[in-house]
């Protein structure tokens, strides 16, 4: 995670009920910060558009089998090999523009001749599933460890901090490459194929193990500054339990960095996952994968540039939209840092 610097530069609203701020007309009383945030967010047009784009991607990923059914193709059939006349003798689509036709809307894949549209849709599904799962795990772990370290402090903080340092020192890409074959050889018999679910689980696992530290660091810092504030002291004086203080006093003030951080984390993990498939330790053929489509596209672009066009465009749209969404969420939570 390299996006830690994009977190809010100012402290979040200090008091949970600080409803008086905000640029709009004097709001009638009784709105929660969440409602205020939602109102501000709705007025932010790029934010709404990017939210729609992101929602569209998730919808596409969820509805992949449906799309495939309606469209009448599936991602694993090698149309180009099975039907003569689609690929030439070098394995490239015969028709111009990567073989785009009424039959194959996004063209066909060079050499194997699979349908690009369904490959892409299923590839997005694979990548988003892995990224979403890894993000949720990273966020949960980050909250747990960050808040614990910040609130408990002292020796616990010291050891958790050094543990985070240790994990941050791991070169993540290299660790992935070294770690995955070990997992496979542990769980798979030498003459059985590694099942795809195990590959997916392993990817989620390695992305999780080396991905939560940024979040934890950030939250620890936030908690350190929050726990000395008056409202926390007041809660302590009234005899509230640590659990209540964390959940009722601290966490509501932490939602901003958590939301912002996770909206930035998800596209990063999508690109890391794509990178892993690119270098061959991620998802293998024949499971469709977004990242591997790039790897192949980078090979074919001299002769068939259309093949990389759609996966590339989709990836750019997704990452940009998700980043804009993250920005908008931050702005909505904290209008003082206007762009």
């Amino acid at each position: 995670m390299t996006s830690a610097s994009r977190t809010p530069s100012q402290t979040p609203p200090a008091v949970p009920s600080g409803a008086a701020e905000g640029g709009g007309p004097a709001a009638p009383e009784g709105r929660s910060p969440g409602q205020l945030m939602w109102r501000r967010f709705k007025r932010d047009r790029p934010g709404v558009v990017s939210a729609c784009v992101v929602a569209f991607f998730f919808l596409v990923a969820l509805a992949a089998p449906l799309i495939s059914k309606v469209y009448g193709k599936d991602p694993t059939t090698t149309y180009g090999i099975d039907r003569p006349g689609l690929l030439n003798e070098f394995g490239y689509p015969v028709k111009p523009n990567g073989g785009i036709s009424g039959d194959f809307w996004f063209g066909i894949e060079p050499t194997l001749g699979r349908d690009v549209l369904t490959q892409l849709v299923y590839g997005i599904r694979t990548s988003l599933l892995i990224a979403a799962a890894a993000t949720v795990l990273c966020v949960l772990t980050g909250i747990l460890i960050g808040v614990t370290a910040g609130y408990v402090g002292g020796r616990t903080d010291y050891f958790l901090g050094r543990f985070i340092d240790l994990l941050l020192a791991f070169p993540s890409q290299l660790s992935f490459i070294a770690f995955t074959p070990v997992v496979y050889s542990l769980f798979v018999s030498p003459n059985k194929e590694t099942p795809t679910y195990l590959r997916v689980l392993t990817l989620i696992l390695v992305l999780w193990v080396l991905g939560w530290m940024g979040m934890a660091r950030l939250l620890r810092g936030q908690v350190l500054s929050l726990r000395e504030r008056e409202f926390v002291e007041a809660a302590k004086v009234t005899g509230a339990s640590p659990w209540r203080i964390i959940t009722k006093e601290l966490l509501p003030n932490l939602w901003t960095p958590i939301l912002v951080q996770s909206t930035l984390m998800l596209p990063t993990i999508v690109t890391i996952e794509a990178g892993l498939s690119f270098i061959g330790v991620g998802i293998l053929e024949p499971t469709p994968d977004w990242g591997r489509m790039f790897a192949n596209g980078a090979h074919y672009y001299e002769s068939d540039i259309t093949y990389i066009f759609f996966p590339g465009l989709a990836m750019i749209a997704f990452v940009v939209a998700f980043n804009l969404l993250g920005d908008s969420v931050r702005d909505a939570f904290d209008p003082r840092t206007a762009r």
Partner: protein
Amino acid sequence: MTSATMFLRRRARLSAAALAAGALVLSACSSGGGGGGDGDKQSQGPGEDKTTSANYSIGTKADSAGPAPEVSGAKKGGTVGVLQRDAFNHLDPGQIYYSDVLTNQMLYNRTLTSYKVDDKGRVKVVGDLATDAGTASDGGKTWKFTLKDGLKFEDGSPITSKDVRWGIERLYAPFETDGPLYIPQWLSGDGNAFRKALPEGPYDGKHLPASVLDTPDDKTVIFHFAKPHADTPFATAMPNIGPVKAEKDTKQKYDNAPFSSGPYKVADYKVGKSLTLVRNEHWDPKTDPVRHQYPDKFEISFGHQFADSTRRFLADQGADKNAMSFSNAVAPEMTEKVLGQSDTKARRFVEIQPYVDYISFNMDRLGDVRVRKALALAMPNGQIVQQMGGATAGLLATNYLSPAMDGYRPTDPFGKKKSPAGDPEKAKQLLTEAGKVGQEIVYAYANTDVQQKVAVVVTQALERAGFKVQKKEVDSNTWRTAIAEVKNQFDIYRTSWGADWPVSSTVVPPLFDGRQIADGAQNYSHLNNSKIDAEIDRISAIPDVKQAAPEWQKLADRILTDEVAGVPVFYNRQFSLWGSNLGGVKYHPVYGTADPTGAFVK
């Protein structure tokens, strides 16, 4: 031939193109799209294959006399640039085995015999240092070579039979491990046992006795082999059967500064980066039937991926006009572009290499011959070739021997020509007969992007024939070792093999001799049949290479149809491109590379 230790010369064609996808998309437009597909590109693409067995012969004394016939239009002068992907692993002729360094050594190293390639692609084994391709006596056990007059090293000192003896004897030293070892093994014993004859090489003053390697005078070299070896003229054309001057032999350091006997000498060598060869003034063209000395210099540089070198040759700008590559092929993804650009017509070739790709069947695990037959029938050869790069990367194979082999006949017992996608019905029928429908097959492959795709088509074809496939990906760096383990856990895997010379004694015994099963050896299918072994011995003993050739083909076909130790998939092809200002570049059918010995700057 007996237990020759041979290595795979072929290197996996991996080209890592790491490009930012985003940047690509920004520059993308709808200009993509692929060709006609109606075969019109075929005619202007892969040329006629000159590599056929009929084109090989042993040259006469007249063929062996220099100088080499002039290349038409050739001019002296200029600098030829050479772009290579991998850094040369050796310059010491004693250590050379891979095709890139084999080609490179032709420029500075001369051998007893050599391959003379005419403009029609016909190959003759001729005397290079020797006046002819050798004279056999004693039923093929004794071979005599006479050196030519006027042979000189790069310092002007004469090359004598003592220098050739030194060159051979230093192969016995423990540090000389990477080169082909035919001659020392034929002289002094199989495997590594020959090293006992001269444990330190010639360096402590000891020499092989005259009853083994005799140099009665300055001009004569006589080999006394333990068994008859009809293909000796081919073995003496390997780069390590040449002269090394004792005073200049720096042992391991010789690898960085070989002492030249050929038309060029090493001027500057930056290991892993570049090599500059300049004219050797003491080389006399009148003694050399093979090489020319047209350019002043060869500037060889390393680290050029196939895609890079192809792009540079295509652009044909500045110094790249005078550039070529020995072994870099046109990147498969750029094949169409090259064939589509009409000005490349005169500066490219597509030729069959002596390398064959197989899918080997592990016979320790696949005991039932019907299952192996079904596998062979179901294998989608044509689809595999397409994943490897299509028509310019390979030609569908129908039997174990390459068309480059002497005695090759286009037998096709499994009907691969007729059904390039495999014959699933027939395979299924065989499986049903054997009662093995649903048999699990562990298919191991090196984890590269191309092999992943090959795995897709192989799996699909085998499952259509009624197999269940378990794909196992193996790290591509450890792939060779993994499949060469006798106790490996895989059923089928891709292997490849290149003959050292166009006689099948360098193919059938190492691949199918049951006595050669060992970790790291090339009997990948673990075929162990005493009848086959006996037949190998019988054919090896035939004193005439030409008589033995059809017998090897028959034996290879018998192994393919009766034992089904594996299925041949395709013959590799070399697709080369070079700069427009170079002339005289031609294909070297034995090394499977672009031959620089006749190249000149226009």
